């Protein structure tokens, strides 16, 4: 990898670097930057690292010195000839299959290798799908768009399409359409594959890119071209679905785009929109490096917000009602790499996409030559359905069915409720088709950010270009409006303080803001970053130093750590845990790491429960349901099973496989093994693990003995017939049975008195005194006072003497 710090000098030893005018300025002025600000993005450290771009084309020359280092086989494959993973182009004398290699070099040619050129994302991984050199079918397109690794590839760049001959109307068929939808829904681990498309190359044929269903799709980022001087190139198609523009070649006096070429060469002949789309793919790769969590729609939003008209010449620049300058030639303008990475770094994902289909009346209208058919539809944006409600527009699609004797004579316009007029179709000189349009989808980006509800006006102009049969006029059979967008504002309309930098987000309630954000000059809360604030509290920060969470009233509050009940999600955002969790790793019920009071964490399911289920026991701290031993069905602790799984039996407090008498279950050998010969039943091998003893032996403290030890007495056989030796009462030294009244001898210092051991220490002392006093003890005995315990102890000898 080329060191980012060195990029400040923005000088590479690649021979074509000085001529790469679209990346850097040639005059080496101190603050000089090119209009696409690619060096600006590099200086911020973004060179496409860890981003994977695939070129869908005629293959790529993976052995090219400028492509070799960044070549990614996982992003490469080849179709048509069974399944093959090598995208090397087929070589012929005319170098017909040079296209993909040229596109790839623009994206990810290695920098500073003293060879040829420098890619815009020169550290990105680059692959190629060879799908154009052979029969292209719906299936081949679908396989290519999905590639073999849709989770690995981030950006697909395609610079091909139906003929740009001004008479073809074609687009993705069923499988390719499914592949697009699959890609944006599941690709890139759910963030959506990014499809970049060349907007069309048929300017000279008066083609219109609305007739190309690929570049016209909402799933593709349609890129047009401008020359270095900002003029419209000869090949440029005007079209409402174009999102943005990058540089490409123009007239002979314009400077060219330089890139890699077949046979390890360089070229400056690569031109058309094919030169522009890979540039856009490279710029998007920089943005995805800055924020890999951008969704496919986030990428489009960022392009809309950051592309600029700059010096691009177009007669139709207009500002839509959301404040975006837009043109049919250049979309929202020239892409700005540095602005994109800045936005990407701070971007908050846009809200969920809503789709509202407004079906207009199905009254058939005749389209008369040199007349206009006007149809007005009052849209609500599906206000009555919260799942489809669209207030803020993104793409707008008009699905239309028209019959017409000459398709090329039609021009179609759409005017939004805010008054933004897009040309959906221009006259096409060479299109003599009588097929009309059958459910064809025209798309415009020009209403981006505007409100959806209100009167939409569709206008169809029929301008006969030559004599034709007027007896069969065209007919507008039906049309419907498909509005894509969000029900809440995706970001602040204030371009100078981008929404992505502002923490507080109550856009719908903007007038009720407590502080005027322009007036507040006081101190900010300690948790605010240096972006500033519009009030003193942690909920007034424009950006947070550490984390933030949303309070009930949708206010965002900056905090040093996520509070209980929240977890750190994407970027700085703390998201709510499942309601029963106290702490968690995600929002699902099975992502808890501790539970709220009254709930216990099930250590196996990571969910919070009110009672431990069978097979689990409550731990000592009373907060965790721990799993019983695998053999236990029910247990009270890790060691004590109270019920066993099927096929096992409770042996003591553990569960084991039931074996016949004289055997135990060996977990190692997985079979019943013989007990020690002394045991009748046992839990493990060895003499110390008997449960019951063999005949003629008795169990004494887990061991089998032939006779009981001195402190034990022989117990009668139990109900099961096995004998045991039981310990004598604590007062006895030896005994003949249970309890204190069956002693047969006493410990030292005790005297046996009628099978009871009495304390003898006092007696010893008393003996001397009692004898010393002569007849006292005799008196005690004579008067039958020995029954009194005190006197018995005092005169123990006299009292115990017979007679």
């Amino acid at each position, binding site marked *: 990898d080329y060191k980012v710090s060195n990029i400040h000098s923005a000088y590479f030893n690649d021979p074509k670097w000085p001529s790469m005018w679209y990346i850097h300025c040639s005059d080496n002025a101190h603050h000089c930057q090119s209009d696409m600000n690619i060096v600006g993005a590099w200086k911020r450290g973004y060179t496409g690292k860890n981003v994977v771009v695939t070129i869908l*084309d*005629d293959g790529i020359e993976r052995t090219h010195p400028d492509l070799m280092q960044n070549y990614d086989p996982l992003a490469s494959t080849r179709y048509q000839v*069974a*399944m093959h993973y090598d995208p090397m182009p087929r070589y012929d004398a005319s170098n017909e299959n040079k*296209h993909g290699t040229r596109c790839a070099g623009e994206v990810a040619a290695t920098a500073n290798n003293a060879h040829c050129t420098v890619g815009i994302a020169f550290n990105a991984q680059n692959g190629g799908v060879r799908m*154009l050199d052979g*029969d*292209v*079918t*719906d*299936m*081949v*397109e*679908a*396989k290519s*768009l*999905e*590639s*073999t690794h*849709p989770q690995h590839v981030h950006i697909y760049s395609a*610079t*091909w*399409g*139906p*003929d*740009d001959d001004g*008479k*073809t109307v*074609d687009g993705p*068929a*069923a*499988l390719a359409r*499914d*592949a697009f939808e*699959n890609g944006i829904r*599941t690709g890139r681990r759910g963030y959506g594959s990014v499809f970049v498309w*060349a907007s*069309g*190359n048929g300017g000279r044929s008066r083609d219109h890119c609305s007739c190309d269903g690929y570049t016209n799709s909402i799933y593709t980022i349609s890129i047009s071209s401008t020359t270095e001087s900002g003029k419209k190139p000869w*090949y440029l198609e005007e079209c409402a679905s174009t999102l943005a523009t990058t540089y490409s070649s123009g007239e002979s006096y314009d400077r060219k785009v330089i890139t890699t070429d077949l046979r390890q060469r360089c070229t400056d002949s690569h031109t*058309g*929109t*094919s030169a522009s789309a890979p540039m856009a793919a490279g710029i998007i790769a920089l943005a995805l490096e800055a924020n890999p969590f951008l969704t496919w729609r986030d990428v489009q939003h960022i392009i809309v917000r950051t592309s600029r008209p700059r010096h691009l010449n177009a007669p139709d620049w207009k500002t839509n009602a959301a404040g975006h300058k837009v043109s049919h030639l250049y979309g929202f303008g020239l892409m700005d790499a540095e602005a994109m990475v800045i936005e990407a770094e701070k971007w908050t994902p846009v809200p969920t996409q809503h789709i509202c289909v407004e079906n207009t009346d199905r009254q058939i209208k005749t389209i008369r030559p040199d007349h206009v058919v006007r149809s007005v539809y009052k849209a609500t944006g599906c206000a009555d359905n919260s799942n489809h409600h669209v207030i803020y527009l993104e793409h707008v699609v008009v699905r239309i069915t028209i019959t017409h004797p000459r398709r090329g004579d039609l021009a179609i316009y759409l005017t939004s409720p805010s008054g933004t007029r897009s040309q959906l179709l221009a006259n096409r000189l060479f299109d003599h088709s009588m097929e009309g349009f059958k459910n064809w989808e025209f798309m415009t980006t020009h209403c981006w950010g505007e409100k959806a509800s209100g009167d939409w006006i569709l206008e169809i102009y029929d301008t006969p270009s030559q004599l034709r049969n007027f007896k069969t006029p065209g007919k507008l059979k039906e049309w419907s409006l498909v509005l894509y967008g969000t029900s809440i504002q995706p970001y602040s309309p204030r371009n100078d303080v981008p929404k992505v930098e502002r923490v507080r987000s109550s856009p719908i309630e903007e007038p009720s803001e407590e502080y005027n954000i322009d007036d507040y000059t006081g101190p900010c809360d300690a948790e605010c970053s240096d972006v500033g604030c519009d009030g003193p509290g942690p909920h007034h920060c424009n950006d947070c130093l550490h984390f933030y969470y949303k309070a009930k009233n949708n206010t965002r509050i900056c905090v040093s750590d996520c509070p209980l009940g929240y977890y750190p999600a994407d970027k700085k955002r703390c998201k709510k845990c499942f309601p029963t969790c106290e702490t968690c790793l995600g929002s699902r019920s099975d992502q808890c790491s501790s539970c709220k009071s009254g709930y216990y964490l099930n250590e196996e399911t990571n969910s919070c429960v009110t009672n431990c289920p069978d097979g689990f026991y409550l731990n000592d701290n009373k907060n965790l349901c721990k799993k019983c031993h695998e053999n236990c069905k029910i247990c009270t602790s890790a060691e004590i099973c109270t019920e066993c799984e099927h096929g096992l039996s409770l042996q003591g407090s553990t569960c084991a496989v039931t074996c016949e008498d004289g055997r135990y279950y060996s977990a190692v050998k997985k079979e019943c093994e013989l007990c020690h010969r002394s045991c009748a039943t046992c839990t493990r091998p060895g003499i110390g693990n008997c449960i019951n003893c063999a005949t003629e032996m008795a169990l004494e403290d887990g061991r089998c003995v032939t006779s009981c030890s001195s402190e034990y007495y022989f117990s009668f056989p139990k109900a099961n017939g096995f004998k045991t030796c039981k310990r004598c009462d604590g007062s006895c030294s030896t005994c003949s049975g249970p309890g204190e009244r069956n002693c047969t001898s006493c410990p030292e210092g005790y005297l046996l008195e009628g099978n009871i051991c009495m304390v003898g220490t006092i007696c010893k002392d008393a003996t001397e005194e009692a004898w010393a006093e002569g007849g006292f003890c005799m008196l005690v005995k004579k008067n039958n006072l020995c029954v009194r315990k005190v006197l018995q102890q005092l005169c123990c000898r006299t009292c115990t003497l017979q007679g």
Partner: protein
Amino acid sequence: TCWARTYTNHWAVRISGDAQEADRIASKYGYINMGPIGSLQNYYHFYHSGTIKRSVLSSRGTHNFISMEPKVEWIEQQVVKRRTKR
């Protein structure tokens, strides 16, 4: 201009079943199951070696009875699409 459709000897098939079921149905009608189409659910790529590689006529023959299989939900003989580099 008039250019006819060019049919290939490849089919896209949607089958309500797993790969084994797709293999079974393919072999029953003389196709070769070339595997799933990308990650599209239940879509399979079938190839028929007994059909002309490129033809202006769609393929006819007993292998077309595959569409009557209860588990075959959709089948389409693939047509060459004209695509140009820009």
